[in-house]
């Protein structure tokens, strides 16, 4: 059977030109361009901005929110949302503190325990969403409160400090690479962030999990009718998000060398903002890890640059809010034109 090229009316201007950039990648290119522009603007405005230590500082401050955003990317691509990542991160940090400081477990075990805490919370959220059919917004809102409360209960509402001899803070702040290449002192936390991004990218684009992730977000009913166990994969995806969240908690605790039960609320919204800035659609089906990394970097470059220019913190938040509106609006305009 032959079907003539019958897109018909749409194709009046002769053959469609082959785009130089893959259409789906356009958003990432734009996001990356805006990141570069931001960096340039700040570099020209202040000599203090484009300094090695400042850039490293930006990267380090991106690490926690970045890992959180990586995890969020997965659920957001399913068309869901995870509001609990902020406080689950806190709970994971607290549990890491409990394992290492209170139970005197070896640091590696403590780290695994912290990450597992996040994974279990994700597993629970996923199960509630897929088995009890509670919408993700509500289910993860509940998980957010549960995790927040548990973090306070377990810690007795007091920060847990790590003993100096455990060397726990080295996890995020030491520079393994700096020992190999002197002068190139990029902290481990940054490397862990990029490592996590690579793993996340592989999961999303090279594995069956990623494929079903997009399928779910694109058309859940069609995915179900294709004989795919939608409930199972949703649980898997929320667990992945939880795992990244746990890692973020471990990183945060290491960076501060302590776990604070009240830190972390509100981080979920920053993570979501980073994901959205990176071009992932909140309605599901579209998104990339690279985009999220760029989105997270834009957020911290913006905050850092504004701080260097001595913009008061309150105003920094206002600017970030405006930038989010502009970025998403630009994307909508671009899509509409097509």
């Amino acid at each position, binding site marked *: 059977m032959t079907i003539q090229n019958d897109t*018909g009316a749409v194709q009046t201007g002769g053959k469609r030109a082959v785009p130089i950039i893959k259409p789906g990648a356009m958003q990432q290119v734009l996001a990356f361009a805006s990141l570069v522009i931001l960096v340039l603007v700040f570099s020209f405005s202040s000599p203090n901005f484009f300094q090695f230590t400042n850039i490293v500082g930006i990267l380090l401050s991106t690490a926690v929110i970045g890992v959180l955003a990586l995890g969020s990317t997965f659920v957001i691509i399913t068309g869901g949302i995870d509001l609990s990542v902020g406080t689950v991160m806190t709970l994971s940090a607290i549990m890491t503190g409990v394992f290492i400081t209170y139970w005197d477990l070896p640091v590696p075990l403590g780290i695994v325990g912290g990450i597992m805490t996040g994974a279990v919370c994700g597993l629970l959220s996923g199960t509630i969403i897929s088995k009890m059919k509670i919408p993700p917004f509500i289910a993860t809102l509940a998980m957010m409160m549960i995790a927040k409360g548990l973090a306070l209960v377990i810690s007795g509402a007091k920060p847990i400090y790590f003993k100096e001899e455990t060397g726990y803070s080295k996890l995020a702040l030491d520079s393994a690479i700096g020992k190999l290449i002197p002068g190139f002192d990029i902290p481990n936390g940054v490397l862990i962030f990029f490592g996590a991004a690579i793993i996340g990218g592989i999961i999303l684009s090279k594995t069956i999990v990623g*494929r079903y992730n997009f399928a779910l977000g694109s058309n859940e009913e069609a*995915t179900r*009718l294709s*004989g795919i166990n939608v409930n199972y994969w949703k649980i898997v995806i929320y667990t992945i998000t939880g795992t990244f969240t746990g890692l973020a908690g471990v990183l945060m605790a290491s960076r501060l060398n302590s776990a604070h039960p009240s830190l972390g609320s509100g981080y979920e919204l920053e993570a979501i903002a980073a994901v959205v800035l990176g071009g992932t659609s909140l309605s599901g089906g579209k998104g990339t890890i690279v985009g999220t990394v760029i989105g997270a970097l834009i957020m911290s470059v913006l905050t850092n640059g504004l701080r260097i220019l001595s913009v008061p913190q309150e105003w920094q938040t206002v600017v970030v809010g405006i930038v989010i509106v502009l970025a998403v609006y630009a994307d909508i305009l671009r899509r509409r034109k097509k």
Partner: protein
Amino acid sequence: MSEVLIQMEGIDKQFPGVQALKDCRFELLSGEVHALMGENGAGKSTLMKVLTGVYQRDAGMMTFHGDELIVPNAKAAQDKGIAIIHQELNLAPDLTVAQNIFIGREPKSLGIFLKEKELHRKVKRLFERLHLDLDPNELVANLPVAKQQLVEIAKALSYDSEVLIMDEPTAALSDTEIDELFVIIRQLRSSGVGIVYISHRMDELKRITDRVTVMRDGCYIGTVATKDVTNDQIISMMVGREIYDTSKPARHTGAAEPVLEVSGLNRKGVLKDVSFRLHKGEILGFAGLIGAGRTEVARAIFGADMFDSGEITVKGRKLKPRQPHDAVKAGIGYLSEDRKRFGCIVDMDVKMNVAAASMGRFTNPVGWVRRKRIAEAADGIVKMLKVKTPHIDQEVKFLSGGNQQKIVIGKWLTRDCDILIFDEPTRGIDVGAKSEIYKLLNELAASGKSIIMISSELPEVLRMSHRVVVMCEGRITGELSQEEATQERIMHLATLRV
């Protein structure tokens, strides 16, 4: 030699409050195209969902190749080689053609890593076998509906299915695309696949099916060989009564003043220099293939899409619709082809749907809703349009397609719209309700309403229109009067490419 593939006997299925299937039976042979006919709500889809494991039967017996058929879920049926192509396309638009076809069966290594190259080889082989010309790497979202349908068919056949159930496969296809689909169906039939063909289009029965099973109100009515019966006999089996044939509408004088004038409407890549007039009391048919730009014209007039240049004049007044609100204020109502998504608010009741476009009339200055007035208006509409609903508090989702269409008409009548644009007014509506809608259109026109009717069903265009405008590739390629319009002429104009 045909063998019995599927045998269903005494199937019962109960839903809360409804007996959906009562003692139903169905038989499918290998190498036959078996039509399953019945009005909406007759139970065709339910019966097929029982067969494919979407629903579990309450009673009855099913066999496949003579052995008992147990299908706990949709996947089980698929694995056994019983595939269904649902009425609503079931594709993930953000995945590519290849990814959609092999979803759930991706070749992988180590249990999780995708092997994209092997996936491509498989898809290429499949397309060669089916003689399909599709780009496996294209995102499904970028394909026109007809091609998406092909993707669905390719997906179903990739399971090496012996049974293929097609639920209204031609609903969204143009005539040439239907011809192409039929070529594929015949190929499958000769290779021994048993095909269940669900459709509302009578003209397709004779062309493609071998036997017809008719259902009514959840009951089995009978099975006949297609060549032994006339369409009218099948229709009377379906509705249980003889159906009246709508006569052509009374000739339109054409002398009446134009109520809507469109001139030089352009939208880059979509519409090119579209100009036409609609007179008072006229039914103006818009014919053309899918993708010819008919819906786009309607949406531009209605303010749902922007256009680059052109003029729209309504009753002598220029209209620059920036949003549907502007068009509605000028008295234009648009009835989408997709009623459930764009026509009614299916979760709300009849009265709120009737009032939906005219809430200003039904609220006092503070915003308080005047329920009594809404009820009166809704009662009036239900009586006038003969809507079959137990009461005006019934949620619209429980009404049949034809009655939902009437509710949408009622919504615009309540709003005092006198230009009504119908996009595929009888899509998915069963035969009985169709002629009621036709009668209603004639009555509306006779009472001075002006109607644009976009339709892909040529008999419908010919039967209903005072005048026919034909489009192809975004341009108007011709205009035919009632006397001039024939199927051949319309098809000629509809394929008049530049």
